[in-house]
Each structure stands twice: as structure tokens, then as C-alpha cells.
């Protein structure tokens, strides 16, 4: 066991990938000598060279598009998109090309491209640097989407994403990059399957499903609720596509109440999908409607008011109150 930040864990995961698989390579803006704007690729170019850690021209469609070509030639590219709000120039390549290549080739071609995207708010940044666009990608068949919330998951999930033969988007919770945690670099243990949700706190009265940056928030809310005698089970979703509905269903059948929280706007979001599926699967177990907590239906607001936008402990407690008093 080693203690490291999430950023360092991803760095170590990438180092392990580059060491273990000669066909893997990293691509992105400023990922070379600078080590990325978040230093996630720090030191890797010195160790693996410019053919494996590629500083690209400043063009997201070009990054994803050339990564597809490299994958067609047998390489395993890991692309870094510098910020969530800058992925959209590459959106066409991701949704119309990357996601469909295996299907449209009748299974003859595979494009195991990984796309890393730092996402989410709470860092006091300027426009386009705090967004959570995961639902836009989750709606596209052919992609897989995962998001670590802790260092151990971060270390293993980036390697599992590279090993996966399908295209994988890894959303990295940027405001948690400096969150430290224990990492077992010898064994993945519970992190063996990146597409499985984890119960990170057991409870009996209500279930709170969260992922990425909101996992620590939900755990804090559950602790606060415990002081009021409410036992809240917290699930770290980990995988946004596919979603591990079995784990959520089992929890709801035990607790009877469900809230889902994410930073992304609630409308058309992952919370709505979970609410719909769970109402289909566990309607008779539900004591109250599924409540969603999330961003408002507005462009991500300016930093000075983002505290009013982002779900925090109080917003999650308010949702729990509503489900308990229904």
C-alpha cells in the first residue's frame, strides 16, 4: 500500500501501462515536458520518449481522429483532453467515428482508444473549465464511460481502460486530483471490474448514488444524517456507461429510498436514467419517488456563484429529508 493523490495514481497507472504495453502511447496538448496542465503525465516523456508521449498540435478533433487511425494500425492511444469544456471540437470524432467503428465494420475493426477528460467544477475557474458533459457521451452506444473517485480506483481504472478493447472515456474529477488515498499497486482487489458500482458506506434507510467528485460529499452527508439517526447507504457508481443497475437495485430493495446526485444538470442526466430504471425494476420497493440532485438547467455559472450551483452536503441532506418525509 502506498499513499498518493489521484493525480499521482493516474500518473503511476499510465507509467505502468507504458511499461507493460509497447503499443500504448499518450497524446494531448502540453502533456510532454510540462506534464499536462494538471501534471498528470509529469515525467513520462523523459522516461518513454516523444514517440510514446506525444505533444500534439492544439486541435481536439485531430487528437481523437489521429488516435483512431493509430488504433486501426494496432496502437493503444490514450488521449488527454485538457478540460471538459474543450472536448466538443472532438465530439464528432468521438460520437460518429470512434463509437461506431466496430459496429459499422461488422465487428472486423476495433478501436481501443482511451480519452481522459478532467471534469467538474468547484475549482473557481473561468468559463468552459468546470463542466460535466458525461450524459452527452453516455447517450452514444459504442462508448464506455468510467470515473474514479479515489486514488486506488484511479490507478487501476486507467490501466483497465487501456486494456479494454472498446473505446473508453475516463472522466477524472479534477477538484479531487489532490485527494490522497491508499493505493495497492500489486492487486486491484475490489477494483477488479471497472464497470461495477461499489457500496462505499452501508446503510438501511436510504440509498445515495453518486460518482466522481461527489463521492466524498455524499459520504459527509451520510455522516451528518447518521447524527439524526438516519442510516444512508452510499454507492459510488464508478461506471457511467454501462451502469451497474444490479448493485443499485439490490440496495434500493433494502432501503426503499433513492436519491441520485451529480454535478451535471439534472435534466436529461444520468440521474434520470437511474430513476427510470429503478422505478421499472423495484417499483414496489420504493417508499418515495427517486429524487435527483444536480446542476440547474443553465450554462455552468460564473465561479463566484458556483457554490449555489453545485450539489453540496446540504443539498444532498435536503433531498434525503424530502425522501424521508414523503
Amino acid at each position, binding site marked *: 500500500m502506498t499513499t498518493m493523490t489521484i493525480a499521482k495514481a493516474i500518473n503511476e497507472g499510465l507509467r505502468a501501462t507504458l511499461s507493460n504495453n509497447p503499443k500504448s502511447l499518450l497524446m494531448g496538448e502540453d502533456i510532454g515536458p510540462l506534464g499536462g496542465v494538471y501534471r498528470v503525465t509529469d515525467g513520462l516523456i523523459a522516461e518513454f520518449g516523444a514517440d510514446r508521449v506525444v505533444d500534439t498540435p492544439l486541435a481536439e478533433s485531430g487528437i481523437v*481522429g489521429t488516435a483512431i487511425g493509430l488504433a486501426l494500425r494496432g496502437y493503444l492511444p490514450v488521449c488527454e483532453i485538457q478540460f471538459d469544456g474543450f472536448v466538443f471540437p472532438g465530439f464528432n470524432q468521438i460520437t460518429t467515428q470512434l463509437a461506431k467503428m466496430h459496429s459499422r465494420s461488422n465487428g472486423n475493426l476495433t478501436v481501443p482508444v482511451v480519452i481522459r477528460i478532467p471534469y467538474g467544477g468547484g475549482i473557481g475557474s473561468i468559463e468552459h473549465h468546470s463542466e460535466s458533459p458525461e450524459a452527452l457521451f453516455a447517450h452514444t452506444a459504442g462508448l464506455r464511460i468510467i470515473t474514479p473517485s479515489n486514488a486506488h480506483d484511479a490507478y487501476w481504472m486507467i490501466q483497465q481502460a487501456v486494456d479494454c478493447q472498446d473505446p473508453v472515456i475516463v472522466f477524472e474529477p479534477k477538484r479531487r486530483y489532490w485527494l490522497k488515498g491508499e493505493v495497492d499497486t500489486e492487486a486491484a482487489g475490489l477494483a477488479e471490474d471497472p464497470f461495477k458500482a461499489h457500496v462505499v458506506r452501508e446503510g438501511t434507510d436510504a440509498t445515495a448514488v453518486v460518482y466522481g467528485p461527489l463521492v466524498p460529499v455524499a459520504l459527509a452527508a451520510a455522516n451528518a444524517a447518521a447524527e439524526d439517526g438516519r442510516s444512508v447507504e452510499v454507492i459510488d457508481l464508478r461506471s457511467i456507461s454501462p451502469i451497474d443497475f444490479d448493485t443499485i437495485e439490490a440496495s434500493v430493495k433494502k432501503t426503499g429510498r433513492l436519491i441520485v446526485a451529480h454535478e451535471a444538470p439534472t435534466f436529461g442526466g444520468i440521474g434520470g436514467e437511474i430513476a427510470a430504471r429503478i422505478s421499472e425494476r423495484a417499483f414496489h420497493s420504493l417508499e418515495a419517488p427517486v429524487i435527483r440532485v444536480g446542476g440547474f438547467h443553465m450554462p455552468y455559472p460564473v465561479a463566484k456563484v458556483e457554490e449555489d450551483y453545485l450539489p453540496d452536503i446540504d443539498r444532498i441532506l435536503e433531498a434525503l429529508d424530502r425522501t424521508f418525509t414523503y
Partner: protein
Amino acid sequence: MGATHLPSTEFDGTGLDDQLEAEAEAVLGEPAAEMVQLLGPDGTLGTDSVFSEYAERLDAEKLRGFYADMAAIRRFDQEATALQRQGQLALWVPLTGQEAAQIGSGRASQPQDYIFPTYREHGVALTRNVDLAELLRQFRGISNGGWNPKDTNFHLYTLVLAAQTPHAVGYAMGIQRDQRLAEANGLAESGTAEPKAAVMVYFGDGASSEGDVHESMVFASSYNAPVVFFCQNNHWAISVPTAVQTRIPLSNRAKGYGFPGIRVDGNDVIAVHAVTEWALEHARQGNGPVLIEAFTYRVGAHTTADDPTKYRESSEEALWRAKDPLERLEKYLRTEGMADDAFFEQVAADGNELAAYIRKSTYESDTPDIRTAFANTYVEAHPLVAEELAWFEEYSAGFAGEDAAEGAGN
């Protein structure tokens, strides 16, 4: 009454292209791109200081082969158009007029090269030994790509314009890495190295405006990738003339990226072959990308759903028919005594045989099963796909025997 406001795209006359060339010269401060031409519309072979030596390597058999290929793909094009009119195909994308650009470039490629087409490159597909009956599966609505690109190094058609251009550059970056790895492993010295390869990517004058073309050319230039950008300027992006896409010859754009750009007469199969052979070898030898602009014309409609009479004059089409790629090569072959009536009769008979094969294959083609779409969405097991497939199977099973019951009722 003619639509006199419509711009002409004639490049020999007094049309917009001349005006553009003059403007380009003013902008660039130097003459705009010259066009490489070896075999003129009258069927006589000219000379070029660089490319004549490539033409001299072509013997009579090669030239007859070019003609046979162009005639075959034109006959195929007619047959596919007919199949669409019969309702056998949902849509067809005709290539008539562009045979020389496609056969000349495709025949210049080598088996180890990898080709990324747009969606009109039926002639290139022929040169890469793609089964043309399989190619029609996409237009019949039974596949999104009827052939396995690994068999022919001819990628699937891409319908999102220019989206394949960065794929080509990435593939070329992969070739570079493969070669560097091989050199590091000493394979080149031991004589076991793979032959050097390049990538060729096709797009049109319309797609040249897409951002992906720009990004691809930047990446290709930055990494000196072994890729040939082959732009077929067929003068019309559905209804919009080239003048709306560019104010300078497209080949001149290469200079802005720092690699060579060549405009070639796209209706001259000998010149196209020469220029492409040069460009691919340039790329294979590690000298970086090349842009080729094949100056040609889409004689027919954009697709079978298009109506060119709404946006261009038939007189313009007539001007281009006079530059027909097949006719000029036929004249040359006959004048030089390289082919006789018997040859051309055989080519026509072979074309009819190909058409019959295409017809038969299309009529007999299988109906797809949506279960294959479930199977191919992901490589690895996926719980949502499995759940939806299970539901579909159960739902479908509910209709079992219903057809028979309906039949009995009738």
C-alpha cells in the same frame, strides 16, 4: 432562358476558374498552380519535365489495363444507378467523369499502402480488389460497410465528410512508429523488414472546407507523416461550386502547411498515375505528406436523389464530356496501335458480365438480422446490450406462429 447567374467551372475558357487563377496570382504574388497534364483531351501525349519519366514506364498492357478498369467502373456505375431506379438500392453515388482520377491513383498504390476513401471511390475500390457486389451492400441498406478493410487495406467508406482524414494521418503515424521499431530491432539490416508503406486519403473540394482537413494537414506536417491527401476537385459539392469553398487553387493550400501540392488533370489517367506514384514514394521514403488536387468533374448527379439541372448548365456538362477520360485514352491506344476493335469489344463484354454479376448478387443478397447489430456494438460483454437483446428475443418469440396463422386466415 438560361440561368446566366450560375458560375461556370470551365477551366480552359473564360470562366470563374480563370478569374480565380488571376486572383490567386494577385494574392500569392506568383503564378497559381500549374496543372500537370500528359494525355490531352485530343488523345495526344505531351511532356512534363518531372512526370514524363513515370509515363514512359507504362507499357501497352498497363495502359490497356487502365482503360479496362475505367470502362469496368463506368459500367458498374451505370448498373448501380439502374439498380437504384429499380428500388434495389436505397441510394447511389455516381462517379462517372472521375474514372481517371480514381483508377490512376488507385493503380499507383501498392498492397502495403492503406487507403481511406470518402464514399464515391468505387474506382479505387476496384483497384484494391474489393468485391464490388460487397460494396453495394452499404447502398442497399444491409450493411454499413460490406467489406473487411483488413483484406484489402481499403478502409470503409466514411459519410461524415473529412472525418477519415485524421484517421489517415494517425494510421500514417502508426506506420512511422512501426518502421522505427523495426529499425530499432535491426530488421531492416536483416532484410526481413516489411516494405515501406504510405497512406492515401481521399476527399473532395467540398470536404476541403471541413476543419478535419485542416487539422489533419497540420498533424501530418508536424510529424512528417507518410500520407498523401488526394483531393478530387469535381467542381460541385452537391449544388455549391468550388468557388464557394476556395478562392485559390486547392493544391496551393499545401504550401501553407509546408508540404508539396500538385494540381493534376484528373481526367488524364496517365498523369494522375504518375503524380500519385511520385507522391506515394515521396511519403514512403520518409519525406512527408503531399497534397494532390485532381482537377476533374462530376458529370452526373451528386447522388440518385440529386437534380443538377437546378444548379448548373447542361452546356457545362457538355464541355466536360469533351474531356472524357475514357475517350482520350481510347484515342491514344488506337493511334499508337496498342489496342484494336477486338480489345474494346472485349472490354464492353467484360463490363456486361460485371453488370450481370452485380445484378445477380444484389438480387440474391441476404437480409441482415438485427442481432448482429446487438453483437457488434461492443467488443466486450455489455450488460445493457445483453438485457435489451434478451427483451427483444422474448418479444419476438411472442409473434412465433403468427405469420402462419395470418396465412391460414387468408
